[in-house]
Each structure stands twice: as C-alpha cells, then as structure tokens.
C-alpha cells in the first residue's frame, strides 16, 4: 500500500474542501487559516499630517500608469473643493477635509493582506503578490463587479462605458516597478515626505515610533495595521480617521473570514441532504405501502365478516321460515281435524271408511 487510509481520507477532504478552505500560501482566496501577510512584503506609510495637497502623487500615478489626462490639470487645486473617489482612469485621489486647518488625505487601493476583492472574485482575477501588491488579471475578468461590492474601501472602479472589453481598474502599487526594486510612482513624486515606502513590518514599527515620539501630533492608531485583517497601506493622522471619511468600524476580521461560515456549510448540505431526503422518501413510501396493506387487510376482513353475517342472517331466516311453515302445516292439520271432528262426531269410524 503506497497510501495509508488516513492519508486517503485526508485527500478526499482536500478534494472537497481544499480550494474552499484555501490552500495556504496562495493568498488568493478565503483562507480558513490566518494569513498574516507575505514575509517582507512591501507597503506604504501615508503620514496625513505631512500631506500638503499638491496632487503631485496623482500626476505621477497618471504618468506611470499611462492614464488619460484629466479634465482639470493636476496643478489646479480647485478640484480639492469637492470629494472625489477613485475612478476608471483615476487610481488615486487627494481629498481635503477642513477642520481647524485643512487636512489632505490620499486615497487609493490599500492592498489588503487578505483582499476582499480576491476572496470575492469567482474567476481568481485578483492576486495578492508576495511583493505586497494586489494585482488584477484582465484576461479572466467576467465583469460581475462583485469585487466592487466586496471592497470595504470602495476602491475598484469599472469601465462602464466600454461595450466590449470593460475592465475593473485600481491602483497596482506599481507592481512592475516594485519588482524592479523601485518605489511606487506616487511615493517617488511626493515632495513633502508624506509617503514612505518600505517593508510593511518596518513601516508599522516606524509609525508607532513616530506616535510615541510625537504623542501630541498623532492619534494613537496606525490605520491599516489591523483593519480588515491588515493592509499594505498604513496611515498616521493627527485626528480620528473617521473625520476624514476613513471608516473605523470595519473590524479586524479579514474578508475571507466573513464568508468562511457559509462556505463551510456546503459539504454539510451536500452530505446530509441526500441521505435525509432519501430517508424521507423511503418513510413516505413505506407509509403508503403499510397503509395499502392495512387497507387490504381491512377490506378482506370486512368481506369475510359481511359474508358470515349474510350467511347467519340467511340461516336465521331459513329457520324462521321453516318454523313458520311447520306451524302453518300444524295449524292447517289441526284446523282440518277440528273441522272433521265438528262434521262427524266419530272420527275414528270415518277414517276407517275412507
């Protein structure tokens, strides 16, 4: 035997569940296990307190990704008067939030450690690469847009006006540049030092060091360290993140964890239902059979009983009839005798004569 029984059963389980439960190391989909990110994966730390809202990062992003030029030039800062989000040909935007003084926040794909988009995609068009970027494969995409429903940060955009080959678009963390050992376009372009790229672990350590060194400058929260299971983009801020439209109620559960429950119910349903339903069928069939048998037995009994009853009745009738007949004869005989006696006072003599 080349394979033990235990191993065989394990293989069966893997066949049924393997993909759904997530093969460790692929980071493509829902993992039953905790995935704390690729070792040494890269990330970017965005220090919101340092951002001056110059839109140089947006400009660089367009240049690196060969995106079409926007309607208003990048040095026109009036666009900051309205709230913008990422769009089909805009992978990153800077928004201004006014409190005591203006605060600028850059928004782009956060490159989750366990991305909701990748977990939601039913053709595996998204992949979390070991470098840290979440990349999209256009050649597989069906265009169902479930990734957009799933993304907690509302990042992926869709080319709604393309009839034949619409794509989902989003920031790639400049994955091709990362592989060459270079920095993402936006980080390279930032003149204010508001964007720092590096290994995610080191960035987290650095961010906390900043918070501890300047406790009056920052809120004690590194956004992205734990949100939705952690993201490759990290944020430092001088005021609560929710004031800048960044949701702080996302929780720390990764997207795959959210759907692991219903996915794990699949084998239960597949295993249990046919057995139960066949049982129900068998029971209802058997009930029918027993009912039919009982009915037949009851009918037979009724037939026998009614036959017997009829016979009894017939018997009684016959007896009664015979009795009546006898009594009628007796009566007639008696009557005849009496009549004879009345005509002839000596009946014995008459008898002899006849």
């Amino acid at each position, binding site marked *: 035997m080349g394979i033990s029984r235990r191993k065989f059963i394990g293989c069966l389980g893997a066949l049924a569940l393997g*993909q*759904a439960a997530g093969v460790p190391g692929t980071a493509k*989909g*829902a*993992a039953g296990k905790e995935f704390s990110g690729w070792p040494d994966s890269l990330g970017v730390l965005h220090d919101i307190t340092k951002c001056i809202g110059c839109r140089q990062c947006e400009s660089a992003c367009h240049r690196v990704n060969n995106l079409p030029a926007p309607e208003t030039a990048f040095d026109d800062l009036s666009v900051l008067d309205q709230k913008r*989000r*990422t*769009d*089909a040909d805009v992978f990153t935007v800077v928004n201004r939030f006014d409190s005591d003084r203006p605060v600028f926040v850059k928004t782009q794909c956060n490159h989750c450690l366990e991305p*909701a988009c990748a*977990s*939601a995609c*039913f*053709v*595996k*068009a998204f992949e979390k690469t070991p470098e840290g970027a979440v990349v999209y494969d256009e050649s*597989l*995409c*069906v*265009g169902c*847009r*479930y990734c*957009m*429903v799933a993304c*907690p940060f*509302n990042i*992926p*955009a*869709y*080319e*709604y*006006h*393309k*009839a034949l080959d*619409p*794509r989902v678009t989003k920031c790639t963390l400049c994955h091709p540049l990362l592989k060459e050992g270079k920095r993402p376009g936006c980080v390279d372009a930032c003149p204010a030092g508001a964007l720092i790229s590096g290994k995610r672990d080191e960035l987290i350590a650095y961010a906390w060091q900043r918070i501890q060194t300047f406790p009056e400058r920052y809120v004690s929260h590194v956004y992205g360290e734990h949100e939705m299971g952690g993201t490759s983009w990290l944020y430092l801020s001088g005021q609560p993140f929710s004031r800048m439209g960044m949701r702080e*109620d*996302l*929780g720390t559960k990764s*997207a*795959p964890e*959210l*759907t692991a*429950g*219903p*996915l794990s*119910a*699949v084998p239960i*349903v*597949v295993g249990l*239902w*046919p057995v139960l*339903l*066949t049982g*129900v*069928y068998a029971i*209802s*069939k058997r*009930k*029918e059979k027993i009912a039919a048998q009982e009915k037949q037995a009851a009918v037979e009994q009724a037939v026998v009983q009614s036959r017997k009853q009829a016979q009894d009745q017939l018997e009684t009738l016959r007896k009664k009839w015979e009795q009546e007949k006898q009594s009628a004869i007796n009566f007639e005989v008696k009557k005849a005798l009496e009549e004879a006696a009345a005509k002839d006072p000596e009946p014995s003599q008459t008898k002899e004569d006849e």
Partner: protein
Amino acid sequence: MTDNGGQTVRKLWTPFNVIVGIILAVGGVLTLMRFTQGIGAVTNLDNNNPWGVWIGFDLLCGVALAAGGYVTSAACYIFGLKRYHSAVRPAILTAFLGYALVVLALHYDVGRPWRLPYPIFVSQGTSSLLFEVGLCVFLYLTVLFIEFTPAAFEWLGLKKIRAVVVKLTLILTIFGVVLSTLHQSSLGALFMIAPSKLHPLWYSNYLPVYFFISSMFAGMSMVIFESTLAHRYLSRHMDDTHHRQAFGVAMGFAKAAAFVMVGYLSVKLVGIAIDGHWQYLTTGWGMWYLVEVIGCVALPAVLFAMGVREKNLKFVRWAAAWTVFGIVLNRLNISMIAFNYHLPSDQRYFPSIMEIGTSVFIVTLGIVIYRFVTTRMPVLHEHPDYPAH
C-alpha cells in the same frame, strides 16, 4: 409574435399581443444599446453602486420566486404528497423559465457575458460565494431542463426517451433540493462579505438561513399566485384533475407557507437578539425594516392562516400575492435599498428607466414563453397517452 401555430390570424391584434409587442420591441432597442454602448449607457450604475435592479430584481428575486420548482417537486416526489401532482409541471416550467431568464439577465449585467462559463471551465474562484451560486445555478438549470423534458417528449411523441427520464425523477428531485439549498442560501451569503455596507438590521450571520427559508414560502406563494393567473387566462388548457386538485394545492401550500413564515420570523427575531440590534428598530431604518418584516411577512402569514381556516381561496390568493411582494421588497432592501445606506443621498443608486425597461422586457419574455409552452405541451393537463405519469 405570440401567435404561432394554432391560433388564427383574426386574433393577432389582441391587447395582450400589442402590449407584449411594444415591450419586446423596446427591449430589442435596449439590448442593442447595451451591447454597443456599454452598461453605462443604459444604467445608473456607478463605482459605488456596482449592482442595481438587474442583480437585485432579475437575479435575486428571479431565483427566489423560481423556488416553487424545488418546493413542489419535493412535496410530491419526496414527501409523497400526491395531491400536488398536477402542480408539479407548471412549477417546474416556471422554475426553468425563471432560471433561464436569470441567466439571460446576467448577460446584460456582466461586462463580458461571453465569459460567463469562465468560473466553471477556465478559472475556478472557489473561495467566492458567487462561484457557488454560479455553479449551482448552472447545474440546477440543467436539472430543471431535464425535469421538464418529459412534457416536451410527450408533446413530440418520443415515448422511449420519456420513459428513461421519468425513471430519473427521484434522483433529479433530490439533486434539485440540494442545489437549491446551496444557491438560495448563497445568494444571501454574498452580502456577508460587506458588513460595512449593508445596514445592520439586514446584515446578519444568518443571511444564508434567511434566504433559504424565505425561498420556501416564496416558492409556495409563487405557485399559488401563478395558478391564480393561469386559472384566469389559461383555464381552457387545464384538465379535470388540475381543476379538482387546484383548491387542495392552494390550501396545502397556504398552510405550509404560514408555518414556514412563522419559522422565518422566529429566526429573524433570534438574529436581531444575537446581534443586539434592538436599538435600530426605533430609527427610520427600523421602521422600514418593520414594514418589511411585520407588514410583508407576518401579516400575509396571518392572512394565509385565516384563508386556510375559512377555506377561503380569495384570502389565500391575496396572501400569496402579498407574500411575493414581501419577498421582492426583502431582496431589493438587501441588494439596493439598505445597501450603501451610509452613503450621502446624492451618491445613492436609483435605477434608470432603461434598466427597469430591460427588466420588464425579460419578465415579459418569460410570460410569452410560458404561454407558448402551456398552450401546446401537456403542462396544465395530462397527455391522454400518459395518464398519471
């Protein structure tokens, strides 16, 4: 268009045909626009609202309301309730058409419809609940097709192959229940990945359970509702058996639906209690939630129960229509109304007239095909050559 075959030319300009003709023509134009100018040209969908009525109504409601197929065939063939026999074929036909139209609607909604087989045949994203939905819908559509073929074979006089398919009935029925359980519930579970977008009153870990249980009474109500319409417009195609059993079918399903709806309400209550979401009930969203749960589940359940007690078919039929409305409301709430509830109102989605037009077009297509089939094949009556198939 609807008057192929047996009907005379004299009847071509009936109001039904004229209205249907207009809708189909408009639908044709919308189809052309969709596939030449893109989704954006006909819909109000945007980056924040990637799913609209084509998913919320066509997919979610379509699948829920097509549940009559598995419910009726399970009642008749698995639970041995023979008195539902005459309801099985219309229910299977509705289910098959329902699912076929769901798939048709998906061709409009997804960006590259010719890639719809990809999740099954090219790249399996098994971690996605949408994968589960896609696979189950694909398989179940096949099952429904096979389940319906006996009617077509009887029509075409193919006795031998019909006999083979009829022998598969039990296996197909069980397979159908398994697949329905999986994808009905998964449609609810789709939204479990977005707890930050769906209002807490609708978001729950029980979403798959809610969807599955509600699909049962959705299916039963739809069978009653559809039979109401069929009795009014297609009565002449029904045989004595169908007429005789119809009352019992309606009463039986009404009783079952009332019970299942009470069960559904209990699970809903447990869901609210477990998440501790009582405080939301007094908000505006809470009122809307109560309109759905009390107004469109609890009240029709009571009406069902009253109809059964009084043996009042009218009550039962109204309750069925009301329940169907409630199911539609629930699915729209989860996919559109309570979804993205946190966005400012100018970023919320409302369907365009062309999106709604496309949905109307697809439903109309279903009605036309239903009429075409039931006026020709032995669906509402038994074929004389195959009594009590």
